[in-house]
C-alpha cells in the first residue's frame, strides 16, 4: 500500500487548515473583549449579549420549532418512502426526489412562494410558521430517503421473508424486523434533516411571514449590515452544536 509522500501530506495539511481555520478564527474572536478585530483579552460579553437579545431568542425558538416539526414529519415520510422503494423501485418518484435535491434553493424558494400566493387566493391564510414548516418538510425528505436507503442496502431482505413465512403480516415484518435493523440510519437521517432545516436561509426567507423570523434570517440581517461580534458568538454556538449532531449522525451511519 502506497503511503502519501511528504509534499502531498504538507498539501493536505494546508487544505485542512483552509477548511477549518476560518471557523476556528471566527470562534476564537467571539471571546474577544474588543468590538474590533484586535485582541484585547478574554471576555464572554458577546455571549451574554446574544443570550439577552430578545429578537435572537425568539428567532432561535422559531427555528427550533420549525426544525423539530420538519424533522419528525420528513423522517417518518422519508423512511416509509425509502422502505417502499427498497421493495420495488419507482423511477418517477426517485427522479423527482433527486431533482428536488439538485434544484437551486432560490428556485425552490420562489416556486413555493408563487405556489403559496396562488393557493392563498382560495384560502384565507397567510405566510407564517406553517408555510415554512411545509417548505422544510418538502426539501428534507430527499436527504432522509438517501440516508435510509443507504442503510437498507446493508439489510438482508431474506430476514423479512423469514418473518412472513413464520406468520408475521407485512406491517409486523417491517415494524419488528427491518425497522430495528435500520434504526441507526433513521436517527442519522433525522439529525441530518434537523441541521438542514435549522440552517436554511434562502428558502425560509422567501416563504416566512412576519411572525416566523428564524435564526439564520436574523444572522443574515446583521451580516448584511457588517460584522458584529454577537454573530461570532452565535456562530460559535451553532458550529459546536451542529458539529456534535453531525458527528453523532456519522457514527450512527457507519455502525
Amino acid at each position, binding site marked *: 500500500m*502506497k*503511503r*502519501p509522500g511528504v509534499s*502531498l501530506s504538507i*498539501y*493536505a495539511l494546508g*487544505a*485542512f487548515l483552509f*477548511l*477549518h481555520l476560518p*471557523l476556528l*478564527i*471566527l470562534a476564537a*474572536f467571539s471571546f474577544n473583549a474588543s468590538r474590533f*478585530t484586535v485582541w484585547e483579552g478574554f471576555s464572554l460579553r458577546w455571549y451574554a449579549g446574544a443570550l439577552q437579545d430578545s429578537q435572537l431568542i425568539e428567532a432561535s425558538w422559531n427555528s427550533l420549532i420549525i426544525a423539530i416539526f420538519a424533522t419528525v414529519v420528513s423522517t417518518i*415520510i*422519508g423512511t*416509509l*418512502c425509502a*422502505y*417502499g*422503494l427498497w*421493495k420495488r423501485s419507482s423511477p418517477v*418518484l426517485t427522479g*423527482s*426526489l*433527486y*431533482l*428536488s435535491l*439538485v434544484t*437551486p434553493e*432560490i*428556485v*425552490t424558494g*420562489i*416556486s*413555493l*412562494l*408563487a*405556489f403559496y*400566493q396562488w393557493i392563498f387566493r382560495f384560502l384565507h391564510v397567510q405566510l407564517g410558521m406553517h408555510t415554512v414548516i*411545509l*417548505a422544510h*418538510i*418538502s426539501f428534507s425528505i430527499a436527504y432522509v*430517503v438517501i440516508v435510509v436507503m443507504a442503510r437498507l442496502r446493508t439489510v438482508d431482505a431474506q430476514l423479512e421473508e423469514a418473518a412472513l413465512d413464520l406468520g408475521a403480516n407485512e406491517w409486523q415484518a417491517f415494524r419488528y424486523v427491518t425497522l430495528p435493523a435500520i434504526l441507526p440510519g433513521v436517527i442519522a437521517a433525522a439529525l441530518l434533516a434537523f441541521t438542514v432545516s435549522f*440552517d436554511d436561509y*434562502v428558502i425560509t426567507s422567501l416563504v416566512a411571514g412576519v411572525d416566523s423570523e428564524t435564526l*439564520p434570517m436574523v*444572522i443574515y440581517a446583521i*451580516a448584511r449590515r457588517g*460584522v458584529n461580534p454577537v*454573530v*461570532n458568538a452565535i*456562530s460559535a454556538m*451553532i458550529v459546536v452544536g451542529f*458539529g456534535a449532531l*453531525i458527528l453523532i449522525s*456519522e457514527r450512527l451511519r*457507519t455502525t
Partner: protein
Amino acid sequence: MNRLRAWFLAPSWAVMLALFLAPLAIILAYSFLTRGTYGGISLPWTRESYQRLADPIYLAILWRSFWIAGVSTVFCLLLGFPLALFISRSGKRKDLYLSLVMLPFWTSFLVRTYAWMFLLRDTGLINTLLQKLGLIHSPLPLLYNDGAVILGLVYGYLPFMVLPVYATLERLDRNLLEASADLGARPWATLTHVMVPLCAPGIRAGTILVFIPCLGAYLTPDLLGGGKSVMIGNLIQNQFTTARDWPFGSAVSLALMAVVMLLLAVFVRRGEEGLL
C-alpha cells in the same frame, strides 16, 4: 404486498406533488403570463419573458454566472484531487480525514460565508494583520468582488469534489499504477495518463456536484460579492422582490432548471448515479 407498498410511498408522493412539482408547474405557467400592474401576474399569455432573456444585460449576468461557477469548479478540482489522493492513501486514518472534510460542510453555510466576511473585510483579520506587520498602509479591497465570491464558493463546495473523487480513487486497481511505474512512466505521466482517466467518473460527478450549486448560488454572491457581483440566483430573487416581475423571474428560474437538467443528462452516465 403491493397495496401496503403503495401506502409506504403515498405520503412522499403527496408531498413531492403538492410542494415540489406543483410549485414548479405554477412558475411554468407564470413564466408565460404578463406582469401585473402592481406586481403579481395577469393575462394575456405571452412568450415575452423568454424573449427578454436574450437582452444583453441578462445575457451578461448568465455568462458571468457560468464563468464564476466554472472557475470555482476548476479550483475545486485542482484543490480537491490531491486531497482525495492523500485521503485514499491514509490507511486507518481515512475515516477521520473524511470526517474532517465533511464537518465544515455540515456546519451552517451562512456561518461559513460570514466567517469569510469576518476575514476579508477592510477592518477584517487579514487586513488588520497585514497593516500591523507594516506590509500595507491602506486595507486591500478583498471583500465585495468576484474573487471573494469564487473563494466563498470553493470553500463551500470543495467537499462535493473530494468525496466522489475519493470514491473512485478507492476502487482504483493499484497494480495499474505499479505497472505504469514499472514500464518507466514518471509519477506525473502516471497521474495524467493512468490515474486521471481511471478517475473520470468521480471527476465528472464532482464537477457536476460543484458546478450546479455554484451556478444557482444566491447567498455567496449576495454576501461576499456585495451588490456588484450579480449572478442568476440574485437576478431571480430580485425579480420576485424589488422588481416585482414574477413572469420574468419565473422564466429565468426555468431557464436555470433547464441548464441543470441538461448538465445532468450530459454528465451523468448510467450506472454512475451512485457517485452522486
